[in-house]
């Protein structure tokens, strides 16, 4: 039975993962695109990205675009799997079959 993952359950991180999983594997989205999409500050997004990167759910790649450094973020396979499990767990809670219990 899928369990809730506390790391990505945080609202911004969950929306971030949802956005990244919507991109095909191997593709990545630029930092400012995600910042604008989520409506968060640079610092806030940076902290959430750091947390997700530490957990191995995302990968951050620095590239030079127009001679400026830019960060491109993608969901890792582990991150995609955790996200799928999270969605499955949420759907089970909605159906009332899990009792809302998840991993601490």
């Amino acid at each position, binding site marked *: 039975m899928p369990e809730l993952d506390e790391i990505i359950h945080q609202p911004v991180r*969950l929306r971030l993962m*949802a956005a990244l999983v*919507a991109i095909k594997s191997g*593709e990545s989205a630029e930092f*400012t695109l995600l910042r604008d999409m989520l409506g968060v500050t640079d610092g806030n997004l940076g902290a959430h990205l750091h947390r997700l990167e530490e957990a191995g759910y995302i990968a951050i790649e620095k590239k030079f*675009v127009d001679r400026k450094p830019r960060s491109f973020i993608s969901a890792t396979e582990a991150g995609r799997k955790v996200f799928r499990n999270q*969605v499955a767990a*949420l759907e089970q809670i909605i159906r009332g079959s899990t009792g*809302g219990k998840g991993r601490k």
Partner: protein
Amino acid sequence: MEISPSEAEKTMASIREAEDQMRKTLGASGGAYQIIIWGVIMVIGYTLNQFADKLGVVLVAVPWIVMSVVGNILCAVISFRMGRKFHHPMAARIGFLWAVFVLFGLIGAIFIHPTDPREINLLIYLLVMLWLAVMGLWVRLPLLWISLAVTGLLVFGYFVLPDYFFLWLAIVGGGTMIGSGLLLLSGRG
């Protein structure tokens, strides 16, 4: 950690919203604007072609040249801007592939040497559709289905409606491209 079903529903709604938002952005980055631009150019250009006898060569050729130049510039600017938002491992190859297709198209035209305007335009269209099909396989699968659908319709028009083929290219070819671009922009493509 425990959450209620209503909290879970709210969370799922925010997930769907984020996914939808990203799909729409991806649609815009996946060639939607470029497809719409060329769709509009084809609607105008081929409508002029259909009435070339009445309009004369200049009134057909000049708009085509202007629209092609403007279209290429607009597409290049859009691709450049979108390339800043997403990174695709195939991005450089996609641009290079377009140049290769144009080169092979020119070489092919020298040897095959089509003289019928309908054949020439169908060949150009097929080359664009082949490129779009490859884009579909590499980048966004919906582009492959769009390419196959438009190609099928164009071949149908070539054989079944020879007298109205340019109008067919304008309405079916250009119209399908505009509709497909809008579909990609909506995030459903």
